[in-house]
């Protein structure tokens, strides 16, 4: 985990993140920290209303999974700081404050949901579209089935430090012009060092008509191709 995050310091997320999760049906926990009256006038879809001053008593309402992405929003960034400290203090490492609060959401031109916001937090983790499980990934690396192609999309500087056996290195940003180096008749198994660039590569390849999946986890590879995988 990055040092800043580990130290429990303030972290801001953006409207783009919340909207993308929503569009891709990726589970997230959104908390509306404003007063119940404010929330009734319009809230971000999927949000649960917990006014700031009540957060401290709501520990039991939060999901069992401490890695759940928890997004707190108020009318602006600063009004959510106290709640952030409380929730982060309970160990929810992926807690963030929506930068600019609900005002930023409105400014981006997104609609507010009407009616009554949710009262209970529901969080069921789900793999991201195109994500391969760590177990299956390991299996493929060990057995190297002939219908799979392992693609390492880290930068060359990182790849020279050590690569998986029989992996091919093409940095994400170079994929569009190097498609000919990737076979179309195999399933492309993509990895980077944290999962982010692998996911970007997955979408580039999918659009170009390739079949593939990506590893959404941290992976460290040494000179001999030995590797370690961990999930945030």
């Amino acid at each position, binding site marked *: *985990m*990055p*040092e*800043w*995050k580990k*130290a429990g*310091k*303030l*972290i*801001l*997320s*953006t409207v*783009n*993140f919340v909207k*993308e999760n929503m569009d891709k049906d990726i589970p997230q926990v959104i908390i509306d920290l404003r007063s119940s009256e404010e929330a009734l006038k319009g809230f971000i879809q999927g949000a649960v209303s917990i006014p700031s001053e009540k957060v401290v008593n709501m520990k039991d309402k939060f999901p069992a999974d401490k890695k759940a*992405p928890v997004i707190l929003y108020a009318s602006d*960034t600063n009004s959510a700081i106290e709640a952030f400290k409380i929730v982060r203090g309970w160990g929810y490492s*992926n807690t*963030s404050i929506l930068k600019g609060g609900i005002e930023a959401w409105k400014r981006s031109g997104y609609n507010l949901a009407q009616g009554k916001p949710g009262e209970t937090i529901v969080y069921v983790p789900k793999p991201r579209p195109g994500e391969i499980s760590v177990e299956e990934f390991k299996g493929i690396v060990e057995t190297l089935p002939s219908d799979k192609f392992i693609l390492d999309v880290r*930068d*060359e*500087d*990182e*790849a*020279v*430090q050590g690569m998986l056996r029989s992996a091919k290195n093409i*940095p*994400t*940003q170079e994929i569009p012009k190097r498609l000919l180096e990737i076979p179309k008749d195999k399933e492309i198994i993509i990895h980077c*060092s*944290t999962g*982010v*660039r692998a*996911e*970007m590569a997955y979408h580039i390849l999918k659009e170009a008509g390739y079949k593939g999946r990506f590893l959404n986890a*941290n992976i*460290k590879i040494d*000179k001999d191709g030995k590797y370690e995988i961990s999930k945030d």
Partner: protein
Amino acid sequence: MKKIISIFVMCMVGLLIFSLSVFSQSEKSRIAPICKQCHTPDDKILRGTFVNVSQKAETIQMLTGTATWIINYDDNTKLIGAERINKIPKEKEIAIEIEERGGQLYAKSVSVKPPVKVPEEKLINIDELAKLIDAGPDQARFFLVDSRPEPRYHEGHIPYAISIYDAEFDKHIEKLPEDKDILLIFYCGGVT
């Protein structure tokens, strides 16, 4: 007598060609301009970028700025920073320690530029950064850059950071502040 003269002429021509080639080699730049930022020119070391390798001919082609060099190697050539010579990425910065063998250049060692080590005095720790964040960029005069891929930024970033993904940094230099006295701080995810 005629024969002796012709041999003599041939020797002279040969000597001329030889000295010319040595002369032109000494004129060729042995260090690429970019490498001069950290290294001083050295007759025994070529510094530049890797072009390609011919395993059949056992030669490495490298570029020192605009000059091209073809250097022989063999199993005794020491390789530092890469598993095999053909694993060196194209355009990667390399240094080749050379010596002359039979009128040709031979690589005693090939070293691939290691990832840049940031000197201690250029590092900022979490507590120092937190103090700056508390004061805010206007008062503390800093500019914070999140170097991770953009989706990571959206997911969660340090307050006041702006996103410039490292791999695309060159294309976005205009995002940096005009005032060059402002402290620039970069961070990534800590995993590389």
